[in-house]
């Protein structure tokens, strides 16, 4: 009886020396589980942070599509187009540059004749934060993004001869 109580881990056993704790197998599964959990959480956080890049790209694509649709319906590069552009910039928090190219205007007022095509190009440089240490500025990578969508005017402009 006394012998059993004096064994390591018994009722009156003295604390384990560090070497014994490190080499001991008792409770190793618990530590293994903790380490695995930390690794899984880190991996998930990494994957989720990468998803933000795709979200930004989708937002940029959506912005471009909306602007193209406005030009198609208006049949011209009017103030309305830039209003929509600035509103979308506010909503998405992105600040891309806009270029309208491959376009033929039917007069000097930036009007696009029915069924004439045009291309809207949005360019944006997304800063992806890899990690942000508290003592120094965050480590960021610049990811250039570009979206081009071609549209077609749906407005018929009756031009004076």
């Amino acid at each position: 009886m006394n012998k059993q109580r004096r064994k390591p881990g018994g009722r009156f056993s003295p604390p384990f020396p560090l070497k014994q704790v490190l080499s001991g197998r008792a409770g190793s599964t618990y530590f293994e589980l903790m380490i695995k959990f930390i690794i899984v959480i880190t991996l998930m956080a990494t994957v989720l942070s990468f998803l933000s890049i795709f979200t930004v790209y989708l937002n940029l694509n959506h912005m471009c599509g909306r602007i193209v649709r406005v030009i198609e319906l208006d049949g011209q590069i009017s103030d309305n187009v830039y209003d929509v552009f600035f509103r979308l910039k506010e909503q998405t928090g992105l600040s891309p540059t806009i270029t309208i190219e491959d376009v033929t205007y039917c007069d000097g007022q930036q009007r696009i004749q029915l069924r004439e095509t045009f291309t809207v190009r949005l360019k944006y440089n997304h800063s992806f934060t890899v990690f942000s240490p508290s003592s120094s500025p965050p480590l960021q990578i610049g990811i250039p993004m570009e979206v081009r969508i071609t549209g077609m005017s749906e407005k018929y402009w009756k031009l004076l001869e």
Partner: protein
Amino acid sequence: MNKALTILKSKHGDGLIFVFIIVFVIFTLTAMVIEYYRMDTMYQQIDYVLRRGMDSSVEYAMLDEYRRDRYARMDSVLAQEKLYEYLYESVKLDQDLNKYSDEGQWVYALEIESLTATDDPPRLVLKGYLKTRSIFSFLTGEVRLPFNLTSANARIDEGGSP
């Protein structure tokens, strides 16, 4: 015969077969989801292109002289002609309304069931099917997706440049 029965009853290697079955199911499901999204995206894109063509055809065929009298009227024959012109020249379909990629591969075909145009009210109605192939065509044959599009123009004020 006995050997075949022995193999079937044997438990050796059943884990491997189980893994093969799971991998096959996962691959099939993934292919189905990807194919569904591919076809859905294509359908939406073609729907958008057709709508644009119909809107522009109606817009072109509107008779502006009637608008002066606050009356909306369209040249229905011209609208139909303009729609076909759009399909051939802008969408680049051939005479049988087949669409080919730049590499010359068949992508889809339009089957127009009916194209109805009315002068008053100015309206163009297009009904038909989009015929395309999927990677499961060997099981299901060609896929036919229906569309029913309407474009109307009720504007009675004069448009265009002053």
